[in-house]
């Protein structure tokens, strides 16, 4: 089994007198896996994300990204090409005055030759459904479009991992849906490893695996199934149970026999429809 990201015994504080933000974190992300790191504000989740592409370098413990220790500065250009990042604020991560220039920014930094760069920029733009906006200025785009431009910029470098650091938290519901759908599509087509850092349980629903962080420690590690239906554990980490799970749990109290794997609204609707077909004579 190959791991794209390996973290061993990582502890971190911003300076010597400061309290630890991350405490003895160990985790692995498999090739092609979708990991969601869930946590409340101040749980250290964004700090952790910055270790994945060597924006932070460990002093205690070690971090390997795509097989390279992030401690070695000579590997940073390689690591940053392999691990793309999309940040929270759509306005603060686009560098260039037009969409195409911004998508090219990472390629320019990597010293990709002109012809190859042209090819990859337009390929990336069309992959993310941004065709026609090549010459557009960032401030004329919607939040969801800006985040897709950021994704296109990361994708143009042909990374193995994409880390989304609260990338949808500043978007409206439409934009959020737009970005999540894009990530899902890319993951299927490119066999990308995805790490989403979020406090929104809805975003974690479609992940393969969830890690819950609380005060810099890993509290839970398991499938969405295990974690999102475990109300007390989520509550402890100051997270909300997804709405569909809440509804399902309430219904179960009334002896409505719903399967355990109801996580999303679609699944809930489907389970209820099925229930109606099998037990049309139910009385509650």
């Amino acid at each position, binding site marked *: 089994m190959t791991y794209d990201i390996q973290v061993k015994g990582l502890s971190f504080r911003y300076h010597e007198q400061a309290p630890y933000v991350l405490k003895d974190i160990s985790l692995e992300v498999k090739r092609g896996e979708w990991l969601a790191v869930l946590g409340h504000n101040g749980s250290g989740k964004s700090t952790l994300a910055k270790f994945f592409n060597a924006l932070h370098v460990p002093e205690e413990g070690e971090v390997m990204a795509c097989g390279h220790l992030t401690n070695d500065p000579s590997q940073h250009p390689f690591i940053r090409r392999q691990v793309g*990042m999309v940040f929270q604020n759509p306005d603060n*991560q686009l560098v*260039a005055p037009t969409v195409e*220039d911004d998508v090219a*920014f990472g390629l320019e930094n990597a*010293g990709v030759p*002109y012809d190859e760069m042209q090819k990859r920029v337009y390929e990336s733009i069309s992959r993310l459904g941004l065709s026609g906006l090549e010459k557009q200025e960032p*401030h004329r785009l919607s939040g969801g479009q800006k985040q897709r431009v950021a994704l296109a910029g990361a994708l143009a470098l042909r990374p193995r991992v994409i880390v989304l650091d609260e990338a949808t938290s500043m978007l409206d519901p439409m934009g959020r849906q737009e970005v999540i759908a894009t990530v899902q599509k890319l993951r299927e087509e490119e066999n990308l490893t995805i790490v989403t850092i979020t406090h929104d349980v809805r975003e974690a629903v479609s992940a393969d695996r969830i890690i819950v962080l609380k005060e810099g420690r890993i509290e839970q590690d398991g499938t969405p199934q295990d974690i999102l239906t475990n109300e007390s554990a989520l509550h402890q980490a100051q997270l909300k149970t997804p709405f569909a799970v809440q509804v399902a749990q309430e219904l179960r109290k009334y002896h409505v026999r719903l399967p355990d794997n109801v996580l999303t609204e679609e699944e809930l609707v489907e389970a209820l429809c099925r229930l109606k077909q099998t037990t049309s004579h139910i009385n509650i």
Partner: protein
Amino acid sequence: MFDNVIIGQYVPKESVIHKMDPRSKLIIVLLFIIFLFLTRHPFILGMAVILTFTAFSRSKIPFGYFIKGMRFIAIIIFFTFLLHLFMTREGTVLVEWPLLTVYSGGVMEGSLIALRLFLLILMASLLTLTTTPIDLTDGMERLMKPLKKVNVPTHELALMMSIALRFIPTLLGETAKIVKAQMARGANFSEGSLWKRLKALIPVLIPLFVQSFKRAEDLAIAMEARGYNGGEGRTKFRQLKWKPLDTGALSLFIAFAVLTVIFRFLE
């Protein structure tokens, strides 16, 4: 407020001038301005007028648009004209008033300055009207490249300029938002003395600055995450293409410059 200032605005059009390389346009404008002020020979001035107006007509920018944007500049030109008109004491006396005397030399001098200023503004605004700020920045970076040898950070300067251009609309939007937020809290920007109005701006500027620093930090992290490592070993997505058109246009203006020098020696 800025509707009447067209310098620095870009008008997208499909024209020969728009298609020219920003480098050649920059060099031409520079040449033109320098040599325009070296001469007072009517032949050369006539040539300058023809060159400017040819360039302008080829750019397909409506002259009305330009004139509308020139109102403010026209006042400056007019005052410069008056100043030269009254201050020059050469030639024959044309008008004699108790306090003012206008000499023929004054009329000449004033008109000359007004004409030069007008042509200069026309050419300079033609540059920005037909070149996007990004291309302009790019052109400047390329032209300044030799300065790199004497440790002028040309790449960094160009990048700074392009980031500044990128963030101007963002910051304008943010300012509007803060102004509204402060108005909702009872701030008043349109009444009271000048001093009061200036003071009312402080609660706008402080959040704006705080936000800008936050943005700068975020942007720096995002740039680092995308592998930005200074100008070393970087390739360029935007390639400037020097076309025969540019060689032609530049030759024309070099000819103009050479003629200017020749006529200056003949005088």
